[in-house]
C-alpha cells in the first residue's frame, strides 16, 4: 500500500447472520483505495452496502473476509483494544447530528472526548482552549460549549460532530450521509464548511451519500454501489455525463432536475420492480433482473470492474453500449 | 414460527431446572438439621430416622439433588415432615381453591381495567382519565390485606352481606362458593385492576399516536370504527401477555389474602408449612407454582406470536 493511500479495502465481504435464513450479504466483494487529500464519494441507494463499507473501513463492523488496511497497517484481524491506537487517525461524522451526541454531555465535553481519550492536551485550561479553537474552526461561538445538544439546531449539532471528528487531528474522515437529515439551506452551509476544512487542513474524505448531486459536488472520485458491490468508479462529472453502467444511467436519470421545462421533456429510464434480496443476489450480474438491456450472457458471468477509459471503470459486459441502447429506446 | 417455539421451550426447560436447584438449595439453608428443626417438640427417634432416610439427607448433596429432580419428574416430591403424606397430593389438593380465587380475581380485574383503561386513553385528559389515573395510583399502593380487613369490616361486619372468611368448593355448592370467593377475589382483583388499567391506558395511548391511526382518521372512518379496528386490536395484543403474567403470579396464591380469609389455597398451604417447618411441603408448593408460572409464560409467548401477524407470518 503506497504512502499516499490512507485506507484500502481489498475484496471486502461483510455478511450479517439472519435468523432463519442465509446471511445477509451487505458488502459482497468491494475493493477501493482512499488517497491522501482526495474526497472519494460512495453513492448508492439503501441496501447498496455503502454505509457498511464505511463502518468496515473504521472496523466498527467486523469483516467476514477480505483485507482492511488503514494508515499503513493491515487492521483486518486487530482486537478492539489494539485498534484504539489507530482510531485517532480515522474519524467519523454521522448522519443524525442529534443521535451522534450524548444528550447528557455538554457540547464542550463531546468535542473534548478525543482529546481526553488520546491525551492530546494536558490540563483543563489547555483542553478548554483547544475546544474553543475547534468550535471556532467549524463556525460556532465558543460559548456554545456549555449548551446541551437538544438546545442547538440541526446544523449547529452537525458542526459539533465535525469539530469532535477533527479533535483527534485525523488524516481521514469518513462522512456517513452528513447532510441527509438537514434542511436544504443548512446542507449547503455544511458542504461549504467541509470543503473549506479539507483545503485548510489537507483532510481526506470518504463521503457516503444517496444524494447524487451532493456527491458530484463534493467528490474528486466517485464509486457507485449496488447490492453490496461497486458497479462503476471514476471522475464524477465525467460519469454523470457519460455513465458506462446501466444502473448508474438509471440512477442519474431518476434524479429530478430543478427546471420544469427540462424535467417535463427529458426522457427517463424508469427501473421496474424492487432491489433483489441481499440474502441471495441474482446469478451472474446482480443488476440483470432490473437492467433494461440485460442479455442471456449477463446471467452467466459476474462482471469485474473493467477499465472503460483512463480512471473510469464499470462492472458490465456491455459497458457503454448497454447505456446507449437504453437511451435509444423510448422510456419504459 | 416453530423455531421460535422450540427456542422458548428450551429456554423454559433450562429455567425450570434452575428453579429446581433453587428450591432444593432452600432446604440446605436451614440452620442445623432440617428434620430435627421440623420435629421440634414432637421429636422421637423412630420418626426422625424414618424421615431422614426417606428424604435421604445423609447422601452427598449432588446425589440428593439428582434424586430430587428425578423423583420430581415422576411426580414424587417427597413426604411431609408433619403428616408423612406425599407432598404432591397435599399440594395438588389445594390447587383448585387457588385456581378459582385467581381466575375470579383476574376476571374482576379485566372487567374493571379494560373499559376504564381504554376510555381513559381515548378521552385523554378528561375527568375520567384523571379518575382512572388516581384509581390505578391508589390501587397499586393499597396493601391487599388491609383492603381485605376493611372489606371484612364493611361487608361482613357492618353490612353482613358476605361471610368474613371460609371456603366452599365450587363443585359442591356454587352459590356458597360465590359468596365466599367474592370478598377475597375483589381484594386481589382491585389491585390487579389498577396495574392493568395503567398498562392498558398507556398501550392504547401509544397506538392512538401511531401514524396508521391518523391514516384511518384521514379516510373519514367513524370514530368507533377507528378505535375498534385500528386501535384496540393493536393495543390489546401486549395487554394479553400482561393479564396472563398477572394470572400466573396469582397462581402462587396471594398468601396474605388466603391467610386473612382462611382460603385453603396453595398460599395458605405455604404459610402453614412455614409455621410447621414442614420444608418438603414448602419446597413442593414453591416448585409447583414456579413450574405453573413458566408454563403460563410459555403459553403467553406462543399466544402472542399467534396474535401478531408480524411474528406469525414470516
Amino acid at each position: 500500500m503506497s504512502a499516499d493511500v490512507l485506507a484500502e479495502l481489498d475484496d471486502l465481504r461483510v455478511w450479517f447472520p439472519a435468523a432463519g435464513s442465509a446471511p445477509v450479504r451487505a458488502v459482497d466483494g468491494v475493493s477501493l483505495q482512499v488517497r491522501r487529500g482526495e474526497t472519494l464519494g460512495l453513492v448508492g441507494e439503501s441496501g447498496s452496502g455503502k454505509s457498511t463499507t464505511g463502518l468496515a473501513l473504521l472496523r466498527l463492523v467486523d469483516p467476514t473476509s477480505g483485507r482492511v488496511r488503514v494508515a499503513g497497517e493491515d487492521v483486518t484481524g486487530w482486537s478492539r483494544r489494539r485498534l484504539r491506537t489507530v482510531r485517532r487517525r480515522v474519524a467519523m461524522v454521522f448522519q443524525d447530528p442529534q443521535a451522534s451526541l450524548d444528550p447528557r454531555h455538554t457540547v464542550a465535553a463531546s468535542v473534548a472526548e478525543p482529546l481526553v481519550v488520546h491525551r492530546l492536551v494536558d490540563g483543563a485550561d489547555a483542553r478548554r482552549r483547544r475546544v474553543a479553537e475547534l468550535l471556532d474552526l467549524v463556525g460556532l461561538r465558543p460559548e456554545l460549549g456549555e449548551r446541551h445538544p437538544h438546545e442547538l439546531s440541526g446544523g449547529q449539532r452537525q458542526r459539533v460532530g465535525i469539530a469532535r471528528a477533527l479533535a483527534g487531528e485525523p488524516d481521514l474522515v469518513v462522512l456517513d450521509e452528513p447532510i441527509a437529515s438537514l434542511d436544504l439551506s443548512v446542507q449547503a452551509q455544511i458542504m461549504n464548511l467541509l470543503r473549506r476544512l479539507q483545503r485548510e487542513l489537507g483532510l481526506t474524505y470518504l463521503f457516503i451519500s444517496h444524494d447524487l448531486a451532493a456527491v458530484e459536488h463534493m467528490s474528486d472520485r466517485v464509486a457507485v454501489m449496488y447490492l453490496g458491490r461497486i458497479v462503476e468508479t471514476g471522475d464524477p462529472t465525467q460519469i454523470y455525463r457519460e455513465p458506462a453502467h446501466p444502473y448508474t444511467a438509471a440512477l442519474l436519470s431518476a434524479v429530478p432536475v430543478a427546471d420544469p421545462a427540462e424535467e417535463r421533456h427529458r426522457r427517463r429510464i424508469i427501473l421496474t420492480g424492487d432491489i433483489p434480496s441481499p440474502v441471495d443476489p441474482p446469478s451472474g450480474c446482480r443488476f440483470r433482473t432490473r437492467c433494461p438491456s440485460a442479455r442471456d450472457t449477463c446471467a452467466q458471468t459476474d462482471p469485474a470492474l473493467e477499465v472503460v477509459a483512463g480512471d473510469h471503470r464499470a462492472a458490465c459486459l456491455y459497458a457503454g453500449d448497454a447505456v446507449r441502447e437504453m437511451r435509444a429506446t423510448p422510456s419504459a | 414460527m416453530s423455531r421460535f417455539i422450540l427456542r422458548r421451550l428450551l429456554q423454559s426447560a433450562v429455567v425450570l431446572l434452575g428453579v429446581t436447584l433453587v428450591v432444593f438449595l432452600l432446604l440446605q439453608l436451614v440452620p442445623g438439621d432440617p428434620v430435627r428443626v421440623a420435629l421440634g417438640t414432637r421429636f422421637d427417634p423412630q420418626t426422625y430416622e424414618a424421615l431422614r432416610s426417606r428424604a435421604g439427607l445423609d447422601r452427598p448433596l449432588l446425589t440428593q439433588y439428582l434424586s430430587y429432580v428425578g423423583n420430581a419428574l415422576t411426580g414424587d416430591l417427597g413426604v411431609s415432615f408433619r403428616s408423612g403424606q406425599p407432598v404432591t397430593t397435599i399440594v395438588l389438593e389445594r390447587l383448585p381453591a387457588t385456581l378459582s380465587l385467581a381466575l375470579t380475581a383476574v376476571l374482576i380485574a379485566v372487567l374493571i381495567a379494560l373499559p376504564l383503561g381504554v376510555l381513559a386513553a381515548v378521552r385523554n385528559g378528561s375527568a375520567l382519565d384523571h379518575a382512572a389515573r388516581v384509581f390505578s395510583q391508589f390501587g397499586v399502593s393499597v396493601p391487599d390485606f388491609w383492603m381485605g380487613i376493611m372489606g371484612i369490616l364493611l361487608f361482613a361486619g357492618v353490612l353482613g352481606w358476605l361471610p368474613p372468611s371460609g371456603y366452599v368448593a365450587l363443585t359442591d355448592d356454587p352459590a356458597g362458593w360465590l359468596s365466599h370467593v367474592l370478598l377475597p377475589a375483589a381484594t386481589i382483583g382491585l389491585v390487579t385492576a389498577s396495574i392493568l388499567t395503567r398498562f392498558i391506558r398507556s398501550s392504547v395511548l401509544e397506538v392512538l399516536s401511531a401514524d396508521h391511526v391518523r391514516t384511518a382518521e384521514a379516510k373519514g372512518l367513524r370514530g368507533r370504527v377507528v378505535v375498534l379496528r385500528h386501535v384496540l386490536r393493536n393495543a390489546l395484543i401486549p395487554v394479553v401477555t400482561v393479564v396472563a403474567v398477572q394470572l400466573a403470579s396469582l397462581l402462587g396464591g396471594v398468601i396474605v389474602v388466603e391467610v386473612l380469609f382462611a382460603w385453603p389455597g396453595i398460599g395458605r398451604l405455604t404459610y402453614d408449612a412455614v409455621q410447621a417447618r414442614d420444608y418438603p411441603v414448602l419446597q413442593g408448593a414453591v416448585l409447583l407454582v414456579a413450574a405453573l408460572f413458566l408454563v403460563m409464560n410459555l403459553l403467553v409467548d406462543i399466544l402472542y406470536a399467534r396474535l401478531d401477524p408480524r411474528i406469525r407470518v414470516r
Partner: protein
Amino acid sequence: MTAEPVLAVEDLTVTLGTRRGPARAVAGVDWSVAPGRTLALVGESGSGKTMSVLAATGLAPRTARVTGRVRLLGEDLTALPPQRRRVLRGRHVGFVFQDPSTSLNPVLTVGRQVTEAAEEHLGLTRRQARDRAVELLELVGIPSAARRVDEYPHQFSGGMRQRVVIAMALACDPALLIADEPTTALDVTTQAQIVELVAGLQERMGTAVVWITHDLGVVAGVADTVAVMYGGRIVEHGPVDDVFAAPGHPYTRALLAARPRPGHRDADLPAIQGSPPSPLDLPAGCAFWPRCPVRGDARCEHELPPLTEVGPAHRVRTFYPSPPTGEDR
C-alpha cells in the same frame, strides 16, 4: 378560465398549544387547486406546509386552534359539523403520507385497509370491497395482486407499501389527492416510479393533487403551480415555470441557488446563513429577515410585507421583489 377549485383555503391560521406556549404554525395562508391540476407546497421544516393541509382537512391535533375558510367542492368545511366534515373528507380526499412503514396498520391485511373507506362511504359489501382492492392494487402496479391482497404490510418493500397507500387513497375515486412528502422516505429510483405512477393516475382520473415536498427537483417534475412557504406563511406563489425561471422572493432564489448543479464543482454553494425559524418565536415582520441577503430597510424587520404581483398569478410577499428578469438565476 379556471374551473371551480376542488379545494380552496382562505386566510388559514393554525395555533398549536405546546408546553412552551402557543406556536403559530400557519399564519394566514391562501391557496387553491383545480381538478386535474397539481399544487406543490414547498418549504423547509417548520415552514407549516404539512400543518396547513392537515388543518384544512380537519386532521390538525386536538390542541390546535384553526381559523379561516376552507371550501371543498364548494362546501365550507370550517362551517360544517365534525361528522359531516369527516364524511366529506373521507369520500372526496385521498391521503398519502411520508413514511410507508408506519402509515399502514401492521396487524390488518392490506386488502382490508385499502377498501375500508370504500365500504364506509360507497357502501360496498365485503365481497365487492375485496374485488375493488385487487383492482386497485393492480392499478398501482403491484404484481400478483390477487394473492397479495390478503398479505400484511410487513411483507411488502418500502416502495410497494407506498403503492398500497396510493391505492388506498384512490379507493373512493377522490376529487383531491393530498401527498405529504410521499417519496421522501424512498430511494431515488423508487421515487421516480411513484412520481410516474401518480402522474399517470392523475391524468386518467382527473384528480387534483396537493404535493408537499422540500425537494425542488420533485416540484419541477410534478407541479403546475407552486407555493413556497416560510415561517408559516406563503412567501411566493405562482405558475411553476415563472417561479423557477424568475423567482421573485429572495428566499426562493436562495433555495434554487443552494442546490449543487452538475459541472459547477469548483465554486462553493451560495448558502443561506442561519436556520429556519421556530413557530414558537416568529418575528413580527418578514420571517426571512434575519437570513435575508437583501434586507432592504427597517420595514422588513418590523412590518409584514404584503403579497405583491410580479407576474400573471405570480405573487411574492416581500418589500423587495427582484425585477421579473431572469438574469440572476
